[in-house]
């Protein structure tokens, strides 16, 4: 079998995976940076609780997260039902739901990475900008955000890689629809379930490994480059 020639099914699931993961990460950026900033900079009661909630998808069985999403964000879910009635927008059985599931599962990794870089940042720089007359917003956009860039970048790639592998929450929330929610891991699962599907599954497995390794290598490369640009030779 020609390894370099991808079948339509493989191309479709790979394309869908990349699309879903891209949206999952794009959707996580603003809320992720905000929550990371809140956790790193603001002291308030309930901070530990927020921290815990953000990390839940990391420790809960993904199927449970998927079920929560169904109950909350489904067509008749608590939030999803309202959203559908008001705007006509629905996550149910569509790639948007797959992106939401992947985004939620990857969210803790993203927040962790951003928070870490916020916490390791020299707070003196923010204070200096402050004493020189910059307001809170300006300090955030001109000092905090650029300095936390390595964390944001690592977080983005980590979240992207995690999204590519998302399986349990996706299949429970938006099922396994070819061309709509059948991403790489779901296509892999479908093949494994069929007698004689091993060869196809193995090929998809290789594709998944290559994509994941590629994402991690880019992440590492970009992070190094950024550190080099900020600190010079290391």
């Amino acid at each position, binding site marked *: 079998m020609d390894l370099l020639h991808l079948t339509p099914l493989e191309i479709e699931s790979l394309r869908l995976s990349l699309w879903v993961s891209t949206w999952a990460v794009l959707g996580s950026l603003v809320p992720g940076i905000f929550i990371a900033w809140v956790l790193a900079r603001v002291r308030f009661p309930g901070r530990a609780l927020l921290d815990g909630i953000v990390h839940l998808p990391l420790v809960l069985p993904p199927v449970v997260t998927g079920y929560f999403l*169904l109950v909350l964000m489904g067509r008749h879910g608590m939030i999803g039902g309202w959203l559908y009635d008001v705007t006509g927008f629905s996550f149910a059985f569509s790639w948007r739901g797959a992106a939401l599931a992947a985004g939620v599962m990857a969210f803790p990794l993203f927040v962790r990475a951003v928070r870490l870089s916020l916490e390791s940042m020299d707070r003196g720089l923010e204070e200096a900008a402050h004493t020189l007359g910059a307001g809170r917003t300006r300090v955030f956009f001109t000092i905090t955000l650029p300095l936390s860039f390595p964390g944001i970048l690592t977080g983005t790639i980590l979240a992207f890689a995690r999204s590519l592998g998302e399986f349990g929450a996706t299949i429970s929330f938006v099922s396994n629809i070819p061309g709509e929610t059948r991403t790489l891991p779901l296509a892999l699962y479908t093949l494994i*379930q069929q007698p004689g599907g091993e060869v196809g599954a193995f090929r998809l497995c290789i594709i998944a490994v290559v994509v994941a390794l590629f994402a991690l290598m880019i992440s590492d490369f970009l992070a190094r480059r950024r550190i080099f640009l900020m600190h010079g030779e290391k």
Partner: protein
Amino acid sequence: MNLLLQIYRPLLRLRAFLFLVTFAALIPFPGFGSAEGREKILIFSAGSTINAITEVGDLFNKQGNEKCVISCAASSTLAKQIAQGALADIYISANPKWMDYLSEKDLIEPETRFDLLGNRLVLIEPISNDSRIEITPGLDLAGLLGKERMAMGDPDHVPAGIYGKQALMALGMWDDIKDRVAPMKDVRAALVMVEREETPFGIVYSTDARISKKVRIVDVFPETSHPPIIYPVAILAEKESPATKRLILFLQSPEARAVFLKHGFTVK
């Protein structure tokens, strides 16, 4: 890799994590050897049988027999686990195909195999609907679905979905419906979708529909519209023992049959 390590290292350093590992190592691992010389029989059984087979297992145990440990999952998953050397004693499949798969690999005792149960395929809807339709060849099911979807087991691999596809094909509805299917990873997941009103209809086994108070059976699919739904059972290779033979006999006893009937199965 610096930043990656920075993120993972604190996780690994957590003392709680170490405690957990130590704790996990202390939990005795239940060993499943052969049925000889121990008091447990490990049954691998199709997901749809979980409630009935658990009850039958308890009954068997109460009559002074060995304890039954039951592992329920998709028939395909279980068959693959057995093929990979899982130490189960008895396998109950929701589909003869997966029993054949093990049979071809010489992993069952062929003379102990027989058809234990039967099931029916039903169309269900959320309890809040009341569409009062009958499944006849002229029914415009696709029209009734509109823009919504039909929840069913994935027709690519879930037995309930395969039967469902065959029934819809026999009734001439498949071509209109195939793009409106929500293929679920197992039949219980399809049930959940209808329970949660995410889809207006679903196709499940009559045994599944019976468990749920949130769905109503719209109609039963004609028995001739799909191959008979048969649950074969067999003792696995080299697991034949007085205990497993007794259990196989017990599965055919009037007490066991009564339990299966109660849960909506047909008995052979």
